[in-house]
């Protein structure tokens, strides 16, 4: 097995080069403020028409206090890939801990406004509450409900309540799957249709909107549009859910420039490569004045593949759940299509638990892998001959064709845990995850959910990382 070297790491860096400036952050915060004020105004407007408006107001909350550690000093576990750092060998409380406060105002039996503030450590490494839900909904009749504002993009089975750990058996949604799409919110509108047929109850949801997701390095991923459909059917102890989202996304730095601006052409074994950019007046190792597009006929199409500029971010999802009150089993599988340097991917998990009164032990297994695409550079023979000599001179072996491939990783996780509902509205959970990042397509990698501070890529260690979590979830 080969170890990834600096040259190999590059495509991964490029793919996660999400950048945004403070100006953009201010814009996001400004939009949140506007949104909040709009909701507050709506609530205030409602009060003038209600005799006892307090009767129409309700609030509720949820949260998790969680301690997490890994078994390796140099490998930090992160609950989501927007966290700037995570928990290594010492217990840390700032990974999964979260607090949410929701208020709801009913203008009438049919129309209501819902605002939910969520505080958890974010990409700026603080706990500044963010507006997670802020919408006005209107029930057209018992079957149809429309809403507009900010809500959760329901790309996965548990997306809607992924932050409400009390609602779920696990201490956190399985990283293998839920890190495939960090998207949380959507600013837009949806329509939900609910009905029943004999013993079946079913629901259809259509939604559309957009969102900008900031990352710690100052960049962002702009989702230009997100439009999707979900459908679920429940019958006795069974639930079946299907979901599909069509989206276009761009990966931008702090100045709003789409990233990456260059491409790393692999020219030798062990990932030896050259960075080529359309902006270079002279392409590396070419005659003076010859640009890369002039030298390599398919250079522009490869750049188009590499730049995540309005590229797809389409997610397909299937979930099957069985819960008879004692036995609980949940299976979910997803596929991500991006047609870019951000790989297409698939992930699946199954979690099973059995309730002994207030105690539920559970086990889960999850798996994820990227589906690689490789593009070859149509370089002139004379150019390759010259460059191969340089590769040999540098002490590396040559390859038949120069290429670029997208992010590569593969991982599985075996988890065991127990949930104990020890007090009303409170649950204690203990979970151990045995996470194994695996070499994939000849490349070692760090898997999902980890930041490696030192040493070999995690998959090259040849052993699992253990993540231990103790948490208390509550609702009120």
């Amino acid at each position, binding site marked *: 097995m080969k170890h990834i070297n600096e040259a190999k790491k590059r495509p991964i860096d490029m793919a996660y080069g999400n950048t945004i400036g403070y100006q953009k952050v201010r814009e996001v915060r400004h939009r949140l403020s506007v949104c909040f004020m709009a909701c507050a105004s709506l609530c205030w407007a409602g009060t003038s028409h209600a005799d006892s408006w307090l009767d129409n107001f309700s609030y509720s909350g949820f949260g998790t206090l969680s301690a997490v550690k890994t078994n390796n000093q140099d490998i930090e576990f992160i609950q989501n890939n927007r966290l700037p750092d995570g928990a290594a060998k010492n217990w840390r409380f700032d990974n999964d801990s979260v607090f949410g406060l929701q208020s709801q105002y009913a203008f009438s039996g049919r129309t209501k406004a819902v605002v939910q503030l969520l505080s958890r450590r974010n990409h700026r490494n603080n706990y500044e509450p963010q507006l997670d839900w802020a919408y006005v909904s209107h029930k057209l009749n018992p079957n149809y409900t429309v809403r507009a504002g900010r809500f959760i993009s329901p790309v996965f089975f548990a997306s809607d309540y992924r932050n409400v750990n009390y609602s779920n058996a696990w201490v956190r949604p399985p990283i293998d799957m839920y890190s495939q799409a960090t998207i949380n919110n959507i600013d837009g509108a949806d329509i939900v249709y609910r009905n029943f047929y004999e013993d079946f109850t079913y629901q259809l949801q259509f939604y559309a909107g957009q969102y900008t997701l900031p990352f710690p390095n100052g960049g962002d991923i702009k989702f230009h549009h997100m439009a999707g459909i979900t459908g679920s059917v429940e019958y006795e102890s069974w639930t079946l859910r299907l979901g599909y989202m069509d989206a276009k996304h761009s990966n931008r730095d702090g100045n709003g420039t789409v990233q990456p601006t260059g491409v790393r052409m692999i020219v030798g074994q062990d990932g030896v490569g050259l960075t080529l950019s359309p902006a270079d007046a002279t392409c590396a190792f070419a005659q003076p004045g010859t640009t890369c597009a002039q030298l390599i006929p398919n250079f522009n199409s490869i750049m188009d593949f590499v730049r995540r500029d309005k590229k797809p971010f389409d997610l397909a999802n299937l979930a099957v759940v069985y819960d008879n009150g004692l036995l609980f089993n949940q299976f979910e599988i997803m596929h991500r299509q991006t047609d870019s340097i951000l790989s297409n991917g698939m992930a699946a998990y199954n979690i099973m638990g059995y309730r002994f009164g*207030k105690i539920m032990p559970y086990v889960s297994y999850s798996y994820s892998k990227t589906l690689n695409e490789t593009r070859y550079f149509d370089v002139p023979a004379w150019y390759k001959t010259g460059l191969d000599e340089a590769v040999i001179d540098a002490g590396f072996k040559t390859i038949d064709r120069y290429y670029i491939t997208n992010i590569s990783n593969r991982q599985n996780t075996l988890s065991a845990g127990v949930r104990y*509902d020890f007090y009303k509205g409170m649950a204690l959970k203990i979970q151990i995850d045995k996470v194994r990042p695996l070499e994939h397509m000849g490349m070692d990698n760090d898997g999902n959910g980890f930041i490696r501070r030192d040493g070999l890529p995690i998959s090259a260690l040849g052993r699992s990382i253990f993540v231990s979590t103790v948490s208390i979830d509550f609702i009120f």
Partner: protein
Amino acid sequence: MTLVSKTFALSLLILSASVHAEIAVIVHAENTASINEDDVKKIFMGKLAQFPDGKPTSPVTFNIDSSIRENFDTGFLSRQTHQIEAMWSKLVFTGKSSAPKVVDSSAAALEYVSSNPNAIAYIDAKDVTPNVKVLFKF
């Protein structure tokens, strides 16, 4: 029947009576929907938000500490109360539905049901009044 078996049967009866008193599921007196036990289970587990005639539901439950709540959840819904709470939390914190109205007495449940055409509740069967319609008892 021998005296011993009579005594045994009587003691069983007393035992079952002490496990839980009879519970009546009630709706508004003018609710004409044909509602069966499965419908009621779905309504109280947040799976169904309308009566079979299409009208919206407004379920009423008891305080989490009350014995009638525990009897209803475990005896009728076949779920622990914390499971029911977790199920509703998925609906409440996504804004899809409001949690059932919580009361702490049969009188409060009766008052709400008798004045709300969409209400559905359960109370100790001995507390039932003519102001409400009993769907069934268990």
